[in-house]
């Protein structure tokens, strides 16, 4: 788990962003009226995917950094 802990910033941020998206889509959206509900659901889903992409970006960044340090 060293590689995960060393990159904790992205893991925590990505998970929180994804969970915020879930909350928006599943908790906030159902309480809204007709057009706002749709926007909120779609926005929440996109935010949740964004969170997952942020996690993946963190990993790819760590890999790039490790590759550069190995070359130098």
């Amino acid at each position, binding site marked *: *788990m*060293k*590689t*995960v802990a060393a*990159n904790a910033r992205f*893991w925590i941020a*990505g*998970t929180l962003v*994804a*969970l915020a*998206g*879930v909350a928006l*889509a*599943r908790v906030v959206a159902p309480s809204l009226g007709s057009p706002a509900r749709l926007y909120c659901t779609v926005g*929440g*889903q996109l935010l*949740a*995917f964004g*969170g*997952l*992409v942020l*996690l*993946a*970006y963190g*990993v*790819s960044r760590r*890999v790039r950094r*490790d*590759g550069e340090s*190995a*070359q130098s």
Partner: protein
Amino acid sequence: MHFQDILNVFQGVTTLFDSPWPILLGRVGLMLLGMVLVYLGKKGVLEPLLMIPMGLGMCAVNAGVLFLDPTTAAAVTEAPVAAGAATHGTLFMAPLVQKPDNLMYILQVDFLQPIYTFAFSNGLIACFVFMGIGVLLDVGFVLARPFLSMFLALCAELGTVATFPIAVAMGLNYREAASIAMVGGADGPMVLFTSLTLAKDLFVPITVVAYLYLGLTYGGYPYLIRLLVPEKLRGMKMPPKPIVKITSDEKLTFAVVACTVLCLLFPSAAPLFLSLFVGVAVREAGLSYFVAFIDGPVLYGSTMFLGLLLGVLCEASTILNPKVLILLILGILALLLSGIGGIVGGYLAYFFSGRKINPVIGIAGVSCVPSTAKVAQKEVSNVTPDAIILPEALGANISGVITTAILTGIYVTLIPLLK
């Protein structure tokens, strides 16, 4: 002994000529189609693991129709049967029976009914196949190139998205349209899950169409690549990259977070997400006994029974539906659009990367794991034998599985809300 008694000995033939013309032609046609599928499976043109049991099932179910005894006929038709009435049926299974009493009776008569009721109609087989796919996936390819992989996978969902309005325009309802549109995702278990959830009355033809066409991707997509990507670009080498090492801890953590978030977002598709990510988790946790179990008996056992059940479901009276022709057109359209979308995505990646990315990678965004990635690499190797695009292609391919699962979740969740 009367002539009638002799006819009763050979009920498969007697019921054939006792059927209305469309059913007679359907039965003969499906028997022949079954034989063709077995032949093409053996030749390797279509996926043999699926096509050989499916083809044989089609032959057997359409040949083995008999006159049911009154008790079984009443259970199968779920209506009182008049004395002396000749009801046709088989001893394989009765997919349309729903009443618990009739179901309990049929479970003791039809030999495949237990597998159909307890493993097929609830999506268990689809989930088992997905678990097997999960064990075969290496999410490290996605984590190494997240933006490229996700972008290509999204482009390759063109067929899944664009076929939906076309299907509605062609007269299908929203549920049927979403089910046939999922063929564009090129992922059999996902089509099975969506059609079982949304369009149970059409799930047999939709799933059969899907699996038939998925078998053709390996043969058809190379021609699409050659048509849309000129040889010079196809043979393009990509700049070498250092070997990346994504640790199993990172992959496992990603699987846990992604599974939780996606299940929270789309509870209707949670069984699929769990199945996929439990496969990934078992692999990354190094549970070799579980990997061997899922990778072997679970995946291959499920594939065999899936093929057999799909074949047995192709009984003429079940599958002959006026909508089948529309489904055949929409299925091929969905796969074609997804392939085109993937290659367009490949071209966009080529231009935005400063002409460094081979556009052929785009086709791998279609999530037929690992066929489309292998097709992409093969087409590139045919032009430049030492050009390697497989790591990037596999990243797009695995992202394709995830995006198709997400689209399944979106369809299964949102379509029932549409009026």
